[in-house]
């Protein structure tokens, strides 16, 4: 077993455990903190796959922005932070079953893929990977349409947020 595989196993176990704790914690705030640990694990997995850019973006976007936003909303809604309600809801087995089925389906599809058991390929260590990724995002033959659609969606969300938050002047009378 190589060093990288050991790292992968440790990171995978930590990531999955903290993912479980996100739904199992009694306090909402603890759930949010476990979520951060889980996302950090994913970032390290990107790092072991030589995708440094994605590892950093994972930290930047998910830990730096989204988790902070989640914690902010938690703090603004004080009531849900109390831990005097039961941690388990009625019918909890239904989502659990769904999750298991989904995992089974995804794993089954992955297993039919030819390279399922392939080992990690060493990438050439040059920054050209990143430049190629950037070019593909704005290339008409590449991913320009999904990229633009995502941009428009984000812009719409931005405008919507400003519209909701804006102070409207009440009409007189």
């Amino acid at each position: 077993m190589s060093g990288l595989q050991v790292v992968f196993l440790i990171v995978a176990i930590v990531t999955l455990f903290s993912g479980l704790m996100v739904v199992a914690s009694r306090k909402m705030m603890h759930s949010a903190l476990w979520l951060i640990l889980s996302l950090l694990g994913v970032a390290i997995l990107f790092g072991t796959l030589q995708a440094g850019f994605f590892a950093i973006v994972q930290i930047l976007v998910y830990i730096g922005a989204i988790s902070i936003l989640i914690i902010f909303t938690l703090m603004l809604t004080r009531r849900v932070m109390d831990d005097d309600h039961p941690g388990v809801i009625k019918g909890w087995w239904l989502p659990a079953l769904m999750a298991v089925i989904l995992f089974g389906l995804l794993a089954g599809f992955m297993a039919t893929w030819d390279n399922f058991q392939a080992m990690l390929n060493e990438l050439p260590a040059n920054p050209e990977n990143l430049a190629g990724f950037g070019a593909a995002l704005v290339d008409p033959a590449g991913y320009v349409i999904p990229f633009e659609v995502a941009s428009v969606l984000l812009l719409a969300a931005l405008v919507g947020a400003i519209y909701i938050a804006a102070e409207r002047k009440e009409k007189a009378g």
Partner: protein
Amino acid sequence: MSFWRDPIVFLINWAKGLLDGIGWGPGWATTVGFVIGAFVLAAGAMFFVVFLIWYERKLIGRFQDRFGPNRLGPFGLFQPLADMLKIFTKELITPVGVDWVAYNLAPVLSVSAVLMMWAVTPFSKTFFGVNISVGILFLIAIGGLGELGILLAGWGSNNKYALVGALRAIAQLISYEVPFVLSALVPVMLSGSMSLVDIVEAQQPWYIVVAPAAAFIFFIASVAETGRAPFDLAEAESEIVAGYNVEYSGLKFGMFFVGEFLHAFTASFIFVTVFLGGWRGPFADEIPVLGLAYFFIKTFIVYFALILFRGTNPRFRIDQMMDLNWKVLTPLALVVIMAVALVNSLFASSADWLRIGALLAVNLVIVFAAERLVRRGVKTTRPEVGSRQRPVASPDNVFIQPGSGVKG
């Protein structure tokens, strides 16, 4: 390679050779080298803070017509050491009802987030931790970890002042990240790389000459990111006691304190790296140790400006702070990005001096126009309160002690 040209890399190579000699493979030698390097850099940075605290207290004292620390050692140099010993011996109090993990993790995170920035900065041509291809993004992402530390401190302390302080701090840090990232995009566009090593290599001339508007925005945003005066709303004593670190005592408070000082210094050397040419200077290419000297000289000049900023400006109100960010800096940064991209590609095939001149002119026009727009409708003449004649610390001050380092 001779010792005097590049002592640090010489020492590193010597240590690697030593490890090779006792039969460790090059892989292990590199790993051990990184571990030792990280430890030395982190410990060095922590001890450096002792000097920074003295420097800052002395300077702020001078700005405010005081002497600053002047009793212990030459020029009061040993004062921070005494303070450090005092803080070591203080009792560590854990208040009732704190969230144990969050409460104890927060000081560690806020120092380590700053120290991690030292890993990617090129101190000289040959001396840097790692050269990762996404260096600038790394800096911003690590800043996010620091925010997490503040949030954990505020929430974990089980104190409303701490929570309010943390929320204020996070609101400020998240907001100022926007112009910070946008203005950092300009050097990335000009150099065509996100690696800090490549950005420094590409700076001929320095980017503060090529894009002064971006440098200006970057500087203000990084001052705001450090959370010091005039952006220290997070610890406004008159409103929320001491902000997110109010429940911390002893060494745990010391960690936040060290983190803040280190962050201010780190922010100034990141500014130097990105806009002031890093280690660049005469003969720095041939003799890397000169580059190290240039780097620290420039950093101390920027740090001086930062302290001047801190020592002379009153604290912003929260609405003023948000106005400055969202109504001035962010639109300005967007305009600068557009203008620099446009001009840079228009003059891509012309001579270098023409391209740089055009970029400089566009930047200056943008800053000038923005200044006029912001000033429109602002009352600029204020009645003067008090007189300009005021007492200053003069040599005939009766309170000067003999042997205090101050000439009297």
